[in-house]
């Protein structure tokens, strides 16, 4: 029985990651940008678990698990920040949050 070549999983992970970066670069809504970040993290998780299969060890699963945990806390804090930014500037346009200019 033929299995799926491992490179296909990894290619899928690369595609998802690239899509995440694209979303990050080209979207203007802050929340969409955040979701692109989550997409990137998922892609990386897939990659880790694939490698865990490759080495026949459970360590990759553990790393992916911790990535998930961190992504969760990051999402919580990040969304709280977005709420604050929205309250102060009344906009969700990422281009308008540019007080660090020069």
């Amino acid at each position, binding site marked *: 029985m033929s*299995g799926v070549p491992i490179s296909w999983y990894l290619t899928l992970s690369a595609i*998802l990651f690239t899509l995440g970066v694209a979303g990050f670069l080209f979207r203007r809504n802050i929340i969409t940008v955040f979701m692109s970040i989550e997409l990137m993290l998922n892609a990386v998780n897939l990659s880790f678990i694939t490698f865990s299969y490759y080495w026949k060890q459970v360590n990759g699963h553990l790393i992916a698990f911790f990535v*998930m945990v961190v992504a969760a806390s990051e999402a919580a804090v990040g969304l709280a920040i977005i709420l604050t930014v929205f309250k102060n500037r009344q906009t969700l346009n990422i281009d308008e949050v540019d007080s660090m200019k020069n």
Partner: protein
Amino acid sequence: MDVILFLIFAIIAVVCAINVVVQTHPISSAISLVGVMASLAVLYLLLGAEFLAAAQVIVYAGAIMVLFVFVIMLLNAGAETKKGQSSMALFLGGPLLVALLMLLAWFVQQLFPGISVHFGGFRGGSAQDVGRALFTTYLLPFEVTSILILIAILGAIVLARKEMD
């Protein structure tokens, strides 16, 4: 069989991901993202990561995305308007992305020629195995991340608190 399952769910994942990026309204992007995560969970199962597949659905799709949807609702975010673009991102970003993808795919092809994944080929992803590793080898990161979660909770509360006053 493995191949068919993989292809189906891989295509679902890619389509949903494209949808996340393309859709104008944030809520559509959020739902598409849920779709991505669900298909990824199936792929994890194919790779023998039972515990993680369950965790993916519960934590990611069940908690994080719900959080996203709540925030979108709170902010009453509408569809995105067409305003200024960053010329840098536009002109440089596209080619770079393509380059990135090509590089990664090429490397992947070169590095792992003949190995293939069979369903059931890896049995060590069960909850028992993950739990054992979590509380022995990875005990320190476990404790540290628990503190990290605590900090994140406090931070989120402090940041969003004033809105309630």
